[in-house]
């Protein structure tokens, strides 16, 4: 190959527009190609997705692309024994053999029971591969499609709250106008994660402008490092602090945006003594009390003069109260003093922060944008992974989000913005267009979402027949039960009628990212046939039967990776931008896209018709831009149709290959959509109570005990397993966080990122406070063991830092790889997940989020200093 290149006489040197694939943000990049070799990656200054700058991973992508350890040919295992350190004895095979083998296995399980197919995908990219993968699962007939670690380790709580309240996947402060933001376990705008690159630019501008940033986090994190105030809270107690702030606002200061609550939330809905909505007998619509006429009315009646938020009323012979009154009464028990004992944050600080948040919200103020008047509420409460990574995930996120709702700062100028839930579409075509719509009870249903599943209205609970038991967790997305320790016990109890027989994995490494590897491996070993498309041979491929050589993002087509733009597109004013990915160099060896593989396999097992129908649905394609029913498509064709459907016949794949992306300015009514939208959001989660009752009935049928106290309509703080440990030896709360240098476990093999991680004392080490070190005779650089209450342990090097709550122990990322196929990653960093329990006792009963915080003890390794 090299010689061939050098022989080329003509010198090729050009820049090609495409997208970054080192994380799900898919920033627009320009790739310099010299004689068929990628020489440099830069941000595309023409695109709002990245605005010409790149995070470290984006620039370093070149090292992923040319890593000589990449898988280059299909492989099959010749050693039937699977386990840690057991060599699969890979043998190269042809694509024909790989395809024929997979097709045969799939035909068999589809005949027997399609649910026996388990599919998994990485969360590192939200590319076309994902769309094709999810669509294949539906076409095949299996409900078992799961996301790897990122799912359990980020989203269930934060996405749940963002979905309910913003119709989006996540939220950020309106960096351009916000004046006071309070972050709970979030580093948005300061590290990795949603729209990381663009948010970093916008957050830096906000900082320079003087936006106050309060960061509540046990670690002086990337965001806390830049904050005006760092509040080093005890892990897992953010919900208690938020509830005390709400109490202060509502009951001590009387600060709330009554008009917003009346018009945009269910605060005025009347709640009966049973805790449910009081409904109109004819229409079934929830009722409100109109103070103007002194009568109950349907929530959406056009003639309500004044919605009652407070009081006791009698309707249909029962005594009822507006939801707001119940909330206000409920939070009274969360005094700042009580929250102090739970969270360690002083009561006076909680009260002051509540007051500052309330005062900065400037309730009642407006601002003129584009000649139109909008509410101006320049405050935002932001929750993400840190605060939500606990067993109390759902209620914590709900409580924090209520802060925004109380002061009415949700999706208005300066406030907390969902990531682009409203689009009017391109001026030429009106596509892609989406907006939240109201459910029959008036509550918000997101208009766009990553997969067809929508957060509201919740699915009706049913006896589980999915591996992840999603039917009894209608409010969750990613399930630990696909690999949990108790899965067999639970499946047996629920009479799951099948067991997974074939697994297709796209790019994920669940062994490293879902929980302690031992548990995950035991679960996966039971699956007789595993196929995995990966860039490298990793810890997961050690369990695979066939490994497929994946393409790097610079070797493939990707249609609209920024759509739906609900986590990778900057929120706030600015531009819409939709880019495509395209190969910048011919792909080498026998590498194939997973998407291509799926299309081919679908054809071989005879489900092309079904797959094309689902793809049409998934991508929202309509005539004349639909996929033909009767023949296998290609990713180029799919991309072409998708692009033409959205942007017009003249703007197909060819146009995008030249231009890279399309962009146009956002309208203020899109960004600040709240006041123009009829949806209401739930300050009272009546649906939670309703769902819980149904879940309870099902669980009783199967005799499965599940703590249903989380299925309540009003927010509470629930202690996590780590808070209940009494043994004083276990004196530290161990938690992990995302390093700016890495995307989950996916970038750990990158040589440049590795080099930078070695320089940064936080990346590969265990951070504890010097006082803890002193007490235990541990010095900077010492090798220590971290041991959980249940005896799980990991070893690593100590980084003593003043920037951590002395009760805490922090570890970055999904590190500690051991696979030989990733030599740069091997032995680097600390495998935090090793400490985690992976079972029902450690998952949020409402949304299934795994508790990612463990009470531990530490002691020096006998080898002492490393």
């Amino acid at each position, binding site marked *: 190959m090299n010689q061939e290149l050098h022989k080329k006489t003509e010198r090729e040197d050009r820049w090609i527009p495409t997208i970054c694939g080192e994380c799900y943000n898919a920033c627009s990049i320009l790739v310099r190609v010299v004689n068929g070799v990628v020489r440099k990656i830069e941000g595309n200054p023409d695109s709002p997705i990245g605005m010409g700058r790149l995070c470290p991973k984006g620039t370093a992508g070149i*090292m992923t692309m040319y890593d000589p350890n990449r898988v280059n040919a299909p492989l099959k295992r010749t050693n039937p024994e699977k386990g840690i350190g057991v060599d699969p004895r890979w043998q190269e095979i042809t694509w024909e053999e790989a395809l024929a083998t997979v097709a045969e296995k799939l035909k068999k399980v589809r005949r027997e029971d399609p649910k026996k197919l388990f599919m998994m995908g990485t969360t590192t990219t939200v590319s076309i591969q994902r769309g094709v993968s999810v669509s294949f699962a539906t076409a095949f007939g299996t409900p078992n499609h799961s996301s790897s670690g990122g799912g359990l380790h980020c989203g269930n709580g934060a996405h749940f709250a963002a979905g309910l309240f913003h119709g989006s996947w996540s939220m950020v402060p309106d960096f351009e106008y916000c004046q006071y933001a309070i972050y709970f376990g979030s580093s948005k705008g300061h590290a990795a994660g949603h729209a990381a690159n663009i948010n970093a630019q916008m957050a830096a501008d906000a900082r320079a402008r003087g936006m106050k940033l309060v960061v509540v986090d046990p670690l002086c994190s990337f965001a806390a490092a830049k904050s005006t105030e760092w509040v080093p809270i005890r892990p897992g107690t953010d919900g208690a602090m938020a509830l005390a702030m709400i109490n202060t606002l509502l009951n001590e200061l009387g600060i709330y945006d009554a008009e917003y609550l009346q018009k945009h939330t269910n605060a005025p809905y009347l709640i009966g003594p049973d805790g449910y909505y009081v409904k109109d007998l004819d229409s079934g619509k929830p009722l409100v009390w109109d103070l103007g006429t002194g009568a109950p009315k349907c929530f959406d009646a056009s003639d309500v003069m004044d919605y009652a938020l407070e009081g006791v009323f009698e309707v249909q012979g029962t005594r009822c109260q507006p939801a707001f009154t119940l909330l206000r009464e409920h939070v009274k028990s969360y005094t700042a003093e009580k929250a102090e004992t739970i969270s360690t944050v*002083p009561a006076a600080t909680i009260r002051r922060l509540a007051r500052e948040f309330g005062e900065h919200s400037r309730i009642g103020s407006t601002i003129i944008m584009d000649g139109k008047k909008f509410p101006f509420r320049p405050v935002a409460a932001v929750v993400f992974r840190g605060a939500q990574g606990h067993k109390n995930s759902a209620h914590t996120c709900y409580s924090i989000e209520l802060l925004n709702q109380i002061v009415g700062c949700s999706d208005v100028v300066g406030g907390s913005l969902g990531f682009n839930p409203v689009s009017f579409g391109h001026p030429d075509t009106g596509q892609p267009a989406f907006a939240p719509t109201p459910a029959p009870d008036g509550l918000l249903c997101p208009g766009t979402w990553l997969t067809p599943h929508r957060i509201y209205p919740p699915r009706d609970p049913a006896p589980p027949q999915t591996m992840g038991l999603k039917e009894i967790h209608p409010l969750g997305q990613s399930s630990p039960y696909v690999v949990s320790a108790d899965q067999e016990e639970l499946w047996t109890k629920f009479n799951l009628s099948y067991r997974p027989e074939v697994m297709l994995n796209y790019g994920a490494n669940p062994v490293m990212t879902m929980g302690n590897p031992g548990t995950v491996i035991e679960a996966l070993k039971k699956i007789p046939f595993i196929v995995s498309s990966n860039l490298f041979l990793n810890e997961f491929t050690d369990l695979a039967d066939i490994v497929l050589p994946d393409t790097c993002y610079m070797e493939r087509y990707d249609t609209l990776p920024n759509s739906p733009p609900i986590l990778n597109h900057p929120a706030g004013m600015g531009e819409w931008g939709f880019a495509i990915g395209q190969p910048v160099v011919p792909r080498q060896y026998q590498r194939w896209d997973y998407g291509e593989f799926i299309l081919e396999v679908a054809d071989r097992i005879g489900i092309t018709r079904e797959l094309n129908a689902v793809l049409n649905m998934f991508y929202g394609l309509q005539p004349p831009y639909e996929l033909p029913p009767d023949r296998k498509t290609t990713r180029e064709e799919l991309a072409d149709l998708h692009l033409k459907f959205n942007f017009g016949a003249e703007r197909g794949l060819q146009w995008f290959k030249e231009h890279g992306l399309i962009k146009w300015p956002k309208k203020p009514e899109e960004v600040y959509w709240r006041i123009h939208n009829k949806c209401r959001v739930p300050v009272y989660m009546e649906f939670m109570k309703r769902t819980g009752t149904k879940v309870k009935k099902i669980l009783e049928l199967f005799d499965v005990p599940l703590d249903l106290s989380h299925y309540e309509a009003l927010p509470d703080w629930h202690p996590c397993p780590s808070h209940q440990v009494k043994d004083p030896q276990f004196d530290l709360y161990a938690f992990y966080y995302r390093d700016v240098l890495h995307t989950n476990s996916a970038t750990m093999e990158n040589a440049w990122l590795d080099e930078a991680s070695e320089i940064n004392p936080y990346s590969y080490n265990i951070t504890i406070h010097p006082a803890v070190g002193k007490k235990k005779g541990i010095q900077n650089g010492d090798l220590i063991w971290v041991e959980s209450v249940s005896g799980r342990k990991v070893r690593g090097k100590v980084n003593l830092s003043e920037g951590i709550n002395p009760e805490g122990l922090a570890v970055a990322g999904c590190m500690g790889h051991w696979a030989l196929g990733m030599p740069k990653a091997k032995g680097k960093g600390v495998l935090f997940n090793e400490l985690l329990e992976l079972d029902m006792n450690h998952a949020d009963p409402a949304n299934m989020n795994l508790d990612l915080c463990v009470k531990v003890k530490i002691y020096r390794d006998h080898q002492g200093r490393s």
Partner: protein
Amino acid sequence: MARWGMVIDLARCIGCAGCQMACKAENGTPPGITWCRVEVKDIGNFPAVRRIPLPVQCMHCREPECEKVCPTGATEKTESGIVRVDSELCMGCRACVLACPYGARYFYEEKKGYYETLSLFEELAYKRHRVGTVTKCDFCQERVERGLDQGLKPGVDREATPACVFNCMTKGRFFGDLDDPRSTVSLLVASGRAFQLLPGHPSDPQVYYLTPGTTLSAGGREDGK
């Protein structure tokens, strides 16, 4: 003739090491050689503490210690203020590595890549580096000069601006002519927030930093303890 200088705003910088990567990519430096590297320091005591990122590179000193000790004249301060190493003249004695007070210099010991074999990219990228010589940040001299030739303005036009500067995702790096009192870098240096590393050291760096500007608030304790 301009006097090139750089300003790094530690209030904007989040320590992402994007500059370190941009430099690796632009200049194709071999393993272990990080012309730009991002260090992290904690200042203060819990809870009044902050993590401060500190990108470090050649300071292009006005009085370069490295130049003084170089026996062959390989290290030279150019008219435009860029301190550069002529790899043809460098004999690899490494006196400069020891003399540089900022740890900015690296000895390129052997032609070795990040992996067992050189990747396609590495073969292309390492061509400009000569084994057995000392290397360091050159303010992206080639890029800046190519830009100037095209009539572009360094620090303003992307194609004439050092890679670490135009790529920084917090817009925290600035480049320009310190002799031009109206350049952004001059204005920032005069802003009252600027400082040099090792204050008082005679080397007089032409890379300035702006103070992080964070108040070490008492981390959520009203009594300030």
